[in-house]
Every structure is written in structure tokens, then in C-alpha cells.
């Protein structure tokens, strides 16, 4: 199926019974936010600053509500069908990766409910960014993993490839706006996808030996080297689409109280701080070593997939240019 670009606003209106999330400016940053009348949806930009994980795993989420002194607990699990428009394939893959964690053994109702309610309409990347390396970690600019529909920009319109039942249902609700696509459209899209893969300039080293080999490098001097300039901020973790760590805190205003979870970062010293004052990861060296080991080794042990989709955000936004591809290449060399 196909849709003309000038019909896009109508398309969004047609599916607006559900909440529609699309890339928009919030302050100076591009994020996935609910589309309202007069919203300025930006599908041309490379990728949002804040990854779409913020929709299913909000930075701050109330887990429980209660009144101080009482024991009645409300557990507000947010429900409501939603559509995310313009998700890049890397971010969609990331959601599938994170799904592993939130359904591991015990189901997390807050996350899983939102995931079940969500339809993902992806947008193929035709102009990968300088630091994108999705193709070397199992993804690609037109990867279909995790998506319900894949859009490809053909110039005057988008080709829509329906991938799942959810995607089918969504397209049916906007039937009148869609046209049948022809073979030329599909061929054109394929050509664009192939060209995009060739435009990717950066590669991770062969990730094959890395998961099993990383534990051998536990005492390697490379960790002290690469972490020496680290500021210990949360940029790489907060903006990473596969990072999912969180803190749980109780907050009160008067008698109204809640237990909420907020994004947390393994790069913060407090992350592993014991109440006794002991910290098993006392410096940035141990924390950096843990982060890389977690993404490229421990996660693979548990869920058989590297917890990195090559979106490049950590490279783009690290204030001191700590470059994960640089780290991986050092790891590759040391192994």
C-alpha cells in the first residue's frame, strides 16, 4: 500500500482514536510526543534525541499510589491503544530486545500493557547518520524486526509494508487514504534500502567473539584508558534505546504519596552503593567495564542478543567523545 505525502495529516487524523506518537520538538530536542492539533510532526529528521522507549518505559512512572499512614494501594497500570509513527528500525529492534527483560520470569504489567497496546509504524532510514552502525549488530536501515508497518519514503509518497495483524488493522482504519502500491514502488523501495546499507560508514568489529571473550579482559588496562575522560553523567544510558535500568523511590506531597520508578544509570556511582558505604564499582573504570560487559556479554548470556542496536546516540551525544565503536575495536584487538 501507498500513501501520498499530502495525505499524511489526514492519515494521522484517521487513526487518532488511538494516541498517536510522532517525532516533535519539545524544547530544543526531538522526542516522540503525542500528536495534537497543530502539532509539527518531523519525519525528515534523522532520529529523535530521546529514544521511543520513553513511550513504553516513561522516564518517570507511578507504580503505586497511597496515602501516608494508610495501607490501601492503587496500582495505576496505564492502558490505551497507541500508535508510534516514524520509529526507526534500530529503535524498534531495541524494543524487542528490552521486551526480554520486562517479561523475564515475572511480567512487568506497566511496560507490557503499553507494549501490547502499541502499534509501531516504522520509517526506513534512507540517509543513515555518520555514527549509525546498525548493520554490524544484527540490524539494518530497513529492518522489519519489531515493526507492524514499515514506511519507505519514495519521494512523493510513502510505501507502506504491512508486517503484522496489528499493522493490518491500523491500515484498515485509514483505508480511504491509501492506494494500492505497484511493483515499481516496491522495487524503488528495495533499491533505496540497499543504497542505505551502503551509506553506512562505521562498522563495529566482528561481534562474534566478543560476548564470550569479554570476561577474559576483566583486568585489561583498556577499561581505565577509555573511562578516564568519562564525566559519569547519564547521557549514554538515558539516550540508549536498549538501556532499561531504573530506580524506585517513594515521594510524598503532604499526605499524598506514591512509589515511582525513574530512569537510572549504571554510570552513576550511587547505582551500586551499599548502605554500609561499600561500593563494588567505586570508580568510572569499573562502571564503564560493567556497562560494556552488560551490553555485549551478560545480556547475550541471558537473552542471546547483544543489547546494542547501533543507533549511534551515545557516540553523537557523549560530551567527551567516548566512542563505543572505539571501545569495541580495542576489545576486538585485545581478544
Amino acid at each position: 500500500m501507498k500513501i501520498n505525502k499530502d495525505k499524511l495529516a489526514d492519515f494521522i487524523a484517521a487513526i487518532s482514536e488511538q494516541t498517536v506518537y510522532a517525532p516533535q520538538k519539545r524544547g530544543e530536542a526531538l522526542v516522540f510526543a503525542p500528536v495534537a492539533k497543530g502539532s509539527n510532526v518531523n519525519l525528515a529528521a534523522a532520529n529523535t534525541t530521546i529514544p521511543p522507549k520513553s513511550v513504553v518505559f516513561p522516564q518517570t512512572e507511578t507504580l503505586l499510589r497511597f496515602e501516608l499512614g494508610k495501607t490501601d494501594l492503587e496500582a495505576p497500570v496505564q492502558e490505551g491503544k497507541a500508535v508510534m509513527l516514524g520509529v526507526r528500525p534500530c529503535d524498534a529492534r531495541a524494543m524487542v530486545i528490552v521486551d526480554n527483560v520486562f517479561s523475564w520470569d515475572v511480567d512487568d504489567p506497566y511496560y507490557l500493557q503499553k507494549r501490547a497496546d502499541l502499534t509501531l509504524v516504522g520509517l526506513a532510514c534512507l540517509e543513515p547518520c555518520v555514527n549509525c552502525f546498525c548493520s554490524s549488530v544484527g540490524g539494518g536501515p530497513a529492518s522489519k524486526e519489531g515493526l507492524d508497518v514499515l514506511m519507505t519514503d519514495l519521494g512523493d509518497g510513502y510505501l507502506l509494508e504491512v508486517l503484522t495483524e496489528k499493522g493490518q488493522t491500523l491500515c484498515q482504519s485509514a483505508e480511504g487514504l491509501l492506494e494500492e502500491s505497484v511493483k515499481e514502488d516496491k522495487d524503488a523501495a528495495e533499491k533505496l534500502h540497499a543504497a542505505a546499507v551502503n551509506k553506512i560508514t562505521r562498522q563495529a568489529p566482528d561481534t562474534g567473539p566478543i560476548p564470550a571473550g569479554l570476561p577474559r579482559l576483566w583486568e585489561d588496562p583498556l577499561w581505565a584508558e577509555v573511562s578516564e575522560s568519562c564525566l559519569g553523567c547519564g547521557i549514554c544510558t538515558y539516550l540508549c534505546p536498549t538501556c532499561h535500568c531504573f530506580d524506585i523511590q517513594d515521594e510524598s506531597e503532604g499526605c499524598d504519596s506514591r512509589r515511582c520508578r525513574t530512569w537510572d544509570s549504571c554510570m552513576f556511582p550511587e547505582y551500586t552503593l551499599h548502605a554500609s558505604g561499600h561500593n563494588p564499582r567505586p570508580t568510572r573504570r569499573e562502571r564503564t567495564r560493567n556497562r560494556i560487559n552488560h551490553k555485549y556479554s551478560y545480556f547475550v548470556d541471558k537473552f542471546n542478543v547483544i543489547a546494542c542496536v547501533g543507533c549511534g546516540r551515545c557516540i553523537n551525544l557523549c560530551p567527551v567523545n567516548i566512542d563505543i565503536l572505539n571501545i569495541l575495536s580495542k576489545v576486538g584487538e585485545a581478544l
Partner: protein
Amino acid sequence: MINLEKIRDIAKNTVSRDDIKYLIGWRQGTYGFRVSPHFVRKPEEAEELIFSPLCSNNLATYLTLAEKRPVPRGQQPDTRKVAVMVKGCDSRAVVQQLVEQGIERESVYIIGCPCEGVVDQSKLEEKYPGTFGQVEARWENGKISLCFPEGKTEVVGEELLTQKCLTCRYPNPVLADINLREEVAARGNESFADVAELEKKSTKDKWSFWQDKFSSCIRCYSCRNVCPMCYCQECILDKLNPTWVNRSVNISENTAYHLARAFHLAGRCIECGECERVCPVNIPITKLNRKLTKEVTEKFGFEPGVDVEAKPPLVGYRPDDKENFIL
């Protein structure tokens, strides 16, 4: 003119000294216009050092960022100095850290780098999107010359410098053990014009402006961590016992975080602009700090980070303190 060979020689000699632990400088980044901090311990590592209009990082922050590990039994603490390359603004951070006794004079060897202004990377990336290969830059005759890897050279002017550089009054380090080159002329004069612009707005408009910005804050704490003046062992804005600012990220807590940090920096902020550079959602943080800088300048006639003997006004008491704003 920057003589890279001379700079690298100075660095090699510094690092070979017995009393120097390591040297902190800049080196070319991993792509495009990036530059990354470089920690030099061996003379050969100094070959990678650069000093160019791309060197925005304020390396003074590493003087207080490096973790102090307990000394193993039987060993003596390592009291060697850390050598740090600083531009004019960066050197003010070192001076202010010395004034506050956050570091000791004998612990640091200051390598002064008179600076003609650094470029705003986001403006560069907007002008030359998708630059992948590493770019070199040079100050040349009042302009900046960019050498792209394909051999192309582009010359750009002031319009690509960071805002702070356009009104810079301290291009030459205010304190240094050695200087890499001759002094350069100051570019600007302080008029706080940018602050006045916001001051003119109504309270409603001001709040609307800041609400828009603070709403996008993700509390990554990069602004705080990069700041050379934020070096408390435990930041009060992080503290849980008691909790002053909640961990939840919303307009209320974000506002509290930014305003509290700005106040904690009043009279201490040396205006290196790093906070704004590192912010992933582009919050104009320096606008807050500069408002308070203006207040401190006007009320106390004090400028942080220029005189190593100075007594900071908010820490000391003088009988002639102008207190017309509280009495």
C-alpha cells in the same frame, strides 16, 4: 600561530618530569569535528596532542573528577602533580578551585593555552552535515580554517564561534606555570546584553520560556558533572537522606534542580559554557548562570577565577559589604 611541534615538545618534557603524574590535553576525536580529552603518561603519547579552535572541553574539571582511591597499606600517597592544558576560561576554573581550596597549588602544573576562540560544534554540524572523516582546524588571521579529510579547506569566521567567545575578556590564562604561545587580544567587553534581553520580559513570558526548556530536561546531570566548579562529593540535589529534590523528572523537580544549581554557582561560575555545550537537549543553561553573575558583579564588584588571592564574597564577610538589597 600554533606550533604543534612546540606544544608536543613542551608536553613531552612535562610528562618526563619526575614530579608530574600525567598531563591532560586534547586530541582529535573519533569522527568529524570532535575532540576528546587525552591523558598523557608517556612522552610518545604526547604526539597526539592538539590545540585548535575545536578544543572546547574545559579540562580543569578533571582536576576534581579523578577519584581518590585509598592508599594500599605500606604505600605512600602519590603526591605528584597533574599537568593540565587550559585556555583562558578554563584557567579561571583552576584559579577558582584554588581559591576555594578544592585543589592545592602544588598538585597542579598549569599549561596556559592563549585561545582565539572555539567553535560551536552544533553550528559546524549544521553547516557541514554528515561530516564523517576527522577534520582539523586552525586559527588563521582572525578566521578559522577547517581542513577536511578529502583535502578540501574551508574558512569560516566569527559567526561559527561559541557565544561566550564573542564577549571573551580572558583569552589568556590568568594563571599558568608555562604558556604555549604569545598572548592574544581580548575579543569582547562585558555588557550582559544577553541577560538584559531576558530581564526585559514579563514574569509570565520568562516562566513560559523556562518552562519550555526545563520540561525537556532529562536530568542526565551532564551539566553538573562537566562543571569544574561542581565537585561536591555528594551533590545535595542527588541526596536521598533527606531528599531535597525528588528523583522524578517533571517541570517542578527540574526547575528546582536548575535553579538550585545556578544559585550554588553564584559568584563561582567562571562562564566556560561547558554546561550548555554538553546538554543533550540544548537547554540554554548559561542564561541562568549569567544572570547571577551579573547580580554578583553589580552587588559585590567580584569576578570569580581571576585572582588567586581573592576572598569570595558569598563566603566571607567585609564590613563594607553593600547590603542595600537586604536592608
